[in-house]
């Protein structure tokens, strides 16, 4: 106990807060940087899984956490010393080869610390680094992509974890990457910055250069999976578009700062398919948006032909959002959703995703109609009801809902006008002389035929 510990609080098993940090990218970074001779300090709530990993990779591990119950649990897992309390009370003199603060700084203090600036917290950690020691530090982006996906509900309904601190005093990181770099001071010279997605406590991906279409797809998947509830905007498309605009680093929810060490540029390794190409889905969406119908007629048959060449297992997951198109050659992106029903159902999945993402379509129609159109380009005819089209559309976010309402309103107005027009045509036919003559002649004829039959 170093003081200012939280007795009725757990970051490992939060009652009304976020869980401790963890995730494949965090684990990969630790795997890549820790050495068997290292003396390590872990500062802040990291998942037990990560602590296990660190313990197995390094010589000794000491831990500093604010929660008393957490400290007790961690002491049973880690053989080194476990300090319990706030960072400002952590006044020992031990020096460490590596200081791990991959949960960031804010959760290093509790309500008993009235105020502490980020730079002061950083200075305390820095003071614990041995000469040529390394620092693994996380900082949350005050304006990350999640701000565009969901309103900050904690602003309206704050959780226990969000007790109001003091302005500039709750160890919150400076706003913006540039400001953080300045605050890093001399450390910045030996720092590598990773952009981390989708969030701090469950980091799937950490990338030095978050660019390129396949990277964008991997990030988009990760962020979409994290924000699966109601959103302001479709997270998948938002990421794709933000990445295309080169904003992958600026809008990253979190950054990792690796000070004095080197790690692979992509963490975990092999999480992004190598080689060139773009997702087939992006190609198709672009063609639909631009009304490039010739491109659709080239692409869809080529895709369907390729699909037919696959074994059943691969074909089942080869939806356009899981296929990389490199010119006219195709390959799988990664693991995907299993779709049964072959090419037509894959195309239906694409159409549905496009509609739910509010993406522009050249033609009016529901999922079934648009799928039939695409399938027909490859000579496939849709005969039955498509399973993907059975449910009502669920536009991803509020922006997509607005787009869908606008589209459906237009289609409804068109359908009304068509009904009126067809009615006027019918009316014209009924009033026409040939119709009336035909009617006048046929009706008595029918009566005659009926009577004759009765005889």
């Amino acid at each position, binding site marked *: 106990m170093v003081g200012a510990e939280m007795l009725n609080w757990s970051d490992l098993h939060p009652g009304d807060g976020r869980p401790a940090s963890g995730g494949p990218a965090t684990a990969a970074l630790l795997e890549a940087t820790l050495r068997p001779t290292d003396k390590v300090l872990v500062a802040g709530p990291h998942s037990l899984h990560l602590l296990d990993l660190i313990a197995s990779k390094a010589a000794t591990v000491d831990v500093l956490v604010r929660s008393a119950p957490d400290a007790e649990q961690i002491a049973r897992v880690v053989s080194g010393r476990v300090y319990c309390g706030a960072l400002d009370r952590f006044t020992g003199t031990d020096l460490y080869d590596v200081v791990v603060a991959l949960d960031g700084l804010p959760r290093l203090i509790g309500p008993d610390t009235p105020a502490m600036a980020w730079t002061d917290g950083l200075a305390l950690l820095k003071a614990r680094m041995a000469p040529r020691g390394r620092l693994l530090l996380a900082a949350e982006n005050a304006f990350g992509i999640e701000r565009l996906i969901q309103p900050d509900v904690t602003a309206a309904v704050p959780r226990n974890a969000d007790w109001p601190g003091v302005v500039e005093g709750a160890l919150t990181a400076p706003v913006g990457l540039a400001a953080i770099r300045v605050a890093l001071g001399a450390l910045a010279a030996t720092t590598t910055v990773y952009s981390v997605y989708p969030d701090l406590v469950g980091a799937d991906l950490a990338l030095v250069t978050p660019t390129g279409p396949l990277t964008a797809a991997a990030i988009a998947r990760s962020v979409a999976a994290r924000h699966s509830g109601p959103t302001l905007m479709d997270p998948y498309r938002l990421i794709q578009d933000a990445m295309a605009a080169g904003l992958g680093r600026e809008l990253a929810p979190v950054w990792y700062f690796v000070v004095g060490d080197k790690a692979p540029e992509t963490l975990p390794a092999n999480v992004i398919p190598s080689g060139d190409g773009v997702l087939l889905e992006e190609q198709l969406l672009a063609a639909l948006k631009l*009304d*490039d*119908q*010739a491109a659709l*007629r080239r692409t869809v*048959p080529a895709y369907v032909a390729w699909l037919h060449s696959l074994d059943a297992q691969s074909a089942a997951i080869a939806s356009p959002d899981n296929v990389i198109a490199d010119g006219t050659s195709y390959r799988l992106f990664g693991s995907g959703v299993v779709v049964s029903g072959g090419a037509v159902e894959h195309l239906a999945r694409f159409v549905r995703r496009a509609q739910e993402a509010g993406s522009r379509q*050249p*033609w*009016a129609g529901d999922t079934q109609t648009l799928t*039939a*159109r695409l*399938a*027909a*380009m*490859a*000579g*496939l*005819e849709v005969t039955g009801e498509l399973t993907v089209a059975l449910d009502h559309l669920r536009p991803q976010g509020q922006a997509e809902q607005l787009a869908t309402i606008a589209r459906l309103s*237009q*289609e409804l*107005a*068109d*359908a009304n*006008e*068509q009904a009126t*027009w067809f009615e006027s045509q019918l009316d014209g036919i009924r009033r026409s002389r040939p119709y009336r003559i035909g009617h006048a002649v046929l009706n008595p004829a029918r009566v005659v035929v009926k009577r004759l039959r009765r005889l």
Partner: protein
Amino acid sequence: MHHANHFYGHAHVMAAYAGLRGSPRIWGYLQHGWNILDGFAYNTAFVAGMPKFVWSDSVRRRGWSMGLRNHSVIGAPWLYLLQVHPELATPAKDAQGTIFYPFHGWEGQHVLGDHGRIVASINEHEQGPVTVCLYWNEYENQAIRQVYEQAGFRVITHGYRGLHWRKTDKDFLLKQLKEIRRHRRVASNRLSSAVLYGASLGLQPGVYGDPMLLQDEHPSFGGQARIKRMWPEMDQPYVPLELAREFTDTELGVENLAHPAEIREMFHWTTKRAFL
């Protein structure tokens, strides 16, 4: 949907390509001739939201800019005719001379101009035998026909394009294809569908002579002046073949040929009702 869909037997051609018989109604509006605006006759009364089947991407863009939506770019029916008749994929063995199409009017708009001057310009530019193809209303006009016959030209017509689904010569386009295959060169006094059709098959195209006037031609099309500004390279007695090919590929929409299944899908030719 619209009777112009059936002009020149276009609906018949499309049905044959789609594997159907007759000329079922098309769900939407089919562009019936090369056109420098939205693909349709001036003042066509479109029913909202109904599909527009246009030849080329340029027509789609112009149409969009004029408020039309729901375009399907499918290429010209001419291209589908070529698919349906692979036996006409090469020129006739005895192909020779020029087929000349004097700019034609139609039942509602007549052409104003001097056919004698057309004859003079044909004689000025053509060496081999000349076939003059008149549209039926000019062909029926003895005086006009005689002008060309007396000049020693063979005078023909491809037939009647039809009006309000009546008297449509369903083989109009096929007759045109067969005639074009009997010639080495195609010419007209205006850049028009016929020149595109001929040039698309590799005939040496030419545009020369008095372009004549169309009665009450609507100014929104910009007339001949606009065509000449847009495609000056196409306005000469001997248009280089390469230039012509690039032009016809774009304007006929060669890249946009749709699969028979897609035609059936687009035209709503997938239900039995379509054929009643």
